[in-house]
C-alpha cells in the first residue's frame, strides 16, 4: 500500500477543499470498501480525508413526512431505526441482506452508495479493466461474467453495482444531498449513477470534491407494504446474484401504486420503470406481474453465462409481487 496523509477536517467545507485541491485525495468514511481496495492496489490515494466526524449521523423526519438520513449513519443504525423498519421495510431488509454485522457497524450510508463493483477483473490489478485502467480492455465478456450485468452494460464494461441498500433507495425515489466546490445540490438517485458507455471509469455524476451529506426518502404509502429479496450463492454474507426491491399498493384487486428496482443485474441500481408502467392500474395477478417483469427484461442483453439471471429476475419479481399483493390489500 502506498503511504498516505490523513486529515480530519472540522467541517464539510474544509473536507471538500482538501479533496478538491489534490488529485490523489479521497474521502474516507467507514473504510470497508476503500481500505480493502487500497490493500488490493486498486485504489492508491495519497491523502485520506476522514469525514466520519463531520457527516450528519442522524435520521430525522422531514416536513414532507419522509426521512432525511445523514450520510454518516452507519448501516446497522439505519436498519435498526424504528421509523425505517415500520415505514420502509424494504430499506431495512435491503441493508440487513448486505455484508455482516461487523461491516454494517462500520459502513456508512454515503459510502454504501459509492461502493465499487465486485467484478473480479476490477479487483485484480494483474488483469485489464476499462473501469480501473481506462482503455486496457475488458476480459469479462469472454471470461468470468456469471455475476455481471444483463442490463445497461456496454462493450466496454458489464460490471454490476454491488449495493443492496441503493436498490431499495432507487425503488423509494430517494434523493442524495451533495455539497461540493460548486455549492449544495440535490440529485435523484437515478441521476447519481452513470451507465458505463465508453467511459466505465466514470461511475457517478459527482465531480471531484463532491461529498454526499445525506439521503432523503419521500413519504410513500406503498412503502409500508414493501420487501427486498436477495438471491445469492450462500444463505448469508454474499453479494447478490439477483435482488429485487418492491413496494406495492393494491386496491379492489388492482395495482394502485408499485415501485420496483432490481439489483446485481446492471452497472447501477436498476429502477424498473417499464415494469411499473405495465403494473399501473392493472389486476394484481401473477399473469400481470409476469407481463410487467417481461416488459422490463425485454431490454436484457445477457452473456452466455449469465442468461439465467433473466429468468431468475422474472421469477423473483413475480413471486415477490404475489406475496405483497396477498399481504397488502
Amino acid at each position, binding site marked *: *500500500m502506498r*503511504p*498516505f*496523509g*490523513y*486529515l*480530519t477536517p472540522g467541517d464539510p467545507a474544509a473536507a471538500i477543499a*482538501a479533496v478538491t485541491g*489534490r488529485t490523489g*485525495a479521497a474521502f*474516507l468514511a467507514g*473504510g*470497508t470498501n476503500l*481500505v*480493502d481496495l487500497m*490493500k*488490493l492496489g486498486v485504489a492508491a490515494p495519497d*491523502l*485520506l480525508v*476522514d469525514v*466520519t466526524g463531520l457527516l450528519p449521523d442522524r435520521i430525522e423526519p422531514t416536513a414532507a413526512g419522509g426521512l432525511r438520513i445523514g450520510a454518516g449513519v452507519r448501516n*446497522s443504525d439505519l*436498519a*435498526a431505526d*424504528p421509523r425505517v*423498519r*415500520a415505514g420502509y*421495510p424494504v430499506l*431495512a*431488509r435491503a441493508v*440487513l*441482506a448486505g*455484508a*455482516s*454485522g*461487523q*461491516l454494517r*457497524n*462500520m459502513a456508512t450510508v454515503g459510502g454504501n452508495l459509492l461502493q465499487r463493483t465486485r467484478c473480479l477483473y476490477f479487483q485484480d490489478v494483474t488483469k485489464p479493466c476499462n473501469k480501473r485502467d481506462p482503455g486496457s480492455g475488458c476480459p469479462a465478456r469472454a471470461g468470468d461474467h456469471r455475476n455481471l450485468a444483463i442490463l445497461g452494460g456496454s462493450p466496454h464494461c458489464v460490471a454490476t453495482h454491488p449495493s443492496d441498500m441503493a436498490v431499495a433507495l432507487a425503488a423509494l425515489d430517494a434523493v442524495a444531498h451533495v455539497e461540493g466546490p460548486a455549492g449544495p445540490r440535490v440529485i435523484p438517485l437515478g441521476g447519481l449513477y452513470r451507465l458505463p458507455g465508453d467511459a466505465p471509469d466514470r461511475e457517478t455524476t459527482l465531480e471531484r470534491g463532491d461529498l454526499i451529506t445525506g439521503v432523503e426518502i419521500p413519504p410513500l404509502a406503498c412503502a409500508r407494504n414493501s420487501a427486498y429479496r436477495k438471491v445469492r450463492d450462500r*444463505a*448469508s*454474507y454474499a453479494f447478490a446474484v439477483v435482488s429485487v426491491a418492491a413496494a406495492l399498493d393494491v386496491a379492489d384487486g388492482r395495482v394502485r401504486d408499485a415501485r420496483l428496482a432490481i439489483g446485481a443485474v446492471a452497472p447501477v441500481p436498476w429502477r424498473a420503470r417499464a415494469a411499473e408502467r405495465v403494473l399501473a392500474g392493472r389486476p394484481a395477478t401473477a399473469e400481470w406481474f409476469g407481463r410487467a417483469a417481461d416488459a422490463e427484461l425485454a431490454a436484457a442483453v445477457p452473456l452466455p453465462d449469465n442468461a439465467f439471471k433473466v429468468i431468475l429476475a422474472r421469477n423473483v419479481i413475480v413471486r415477490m409481487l404475489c406475496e405483497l399483493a396477498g399481504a397488502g390489500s
Partner: protein
Amino acid sequence: MLASVTTADDTSSELTLVVNGTAHRLRLDHRTTLLDALREHLGLTGTKKGCDHGQCGACTVLVGGRRVNSCLLLAVMTREAEVTTIEGLAGPDGGLHPLQAAFVERDALQCGYCTPGQICSATAMLGEAAAGWPSAASASVTGPIVLDPPEIRERMSGNLCRCGAYVNILAAITDVAGEAR
C-alpha cells in the same frame, strides 16, 4: 485523545489508542490497521489475522462496544474510541466471560484460530439482539427478536470457522443467549 495535528504530507500520526481500559501513546504509519496495531505494536495477539479483507471475522474486536473488523479499520480512525479485544473480556480476577466459559463447556472450536473473533462477535451480537435489532433471518423487522438457531446463524455469518465447529459454536452462544433471557 486527538491525533496530533498533521499536514496532508505526513504519512504517520501520533495518537492514543485506548485498549481494554489502558491508554497507549503510539506513532503509527497511517497504513497501520487497528489489527496490526494491536498485534504488532501492543503485543495483543489474541486478535487474529485471517483473510485481512473483512471476509472472515477472525479479527473482530469491539470499538465503542460495537463489533467491527479490525483489519479494515485504520488505527488512526479509532483514536477516540474504546477498543475491547478478547484479552479484555475476562474479568479482572481472570474469570472467564460467560461466552468464553460456554465455548469451553461446549467444545466450540477445533484449532481455535477463529475463536477470539467468534467470541467478540457474539458478545456484541447478543447486545444487538437485546436492543431489538432485526436481522435478515427475522420473520418481521418490527417484531420481537427471539434468538433461535436461524437467527444466531445469520447474525454470526460474518465469522467463518474453517474447522467447521459451527454446531458447537451455535450451542455455546445459544446457552448464553438463554441465560441472558
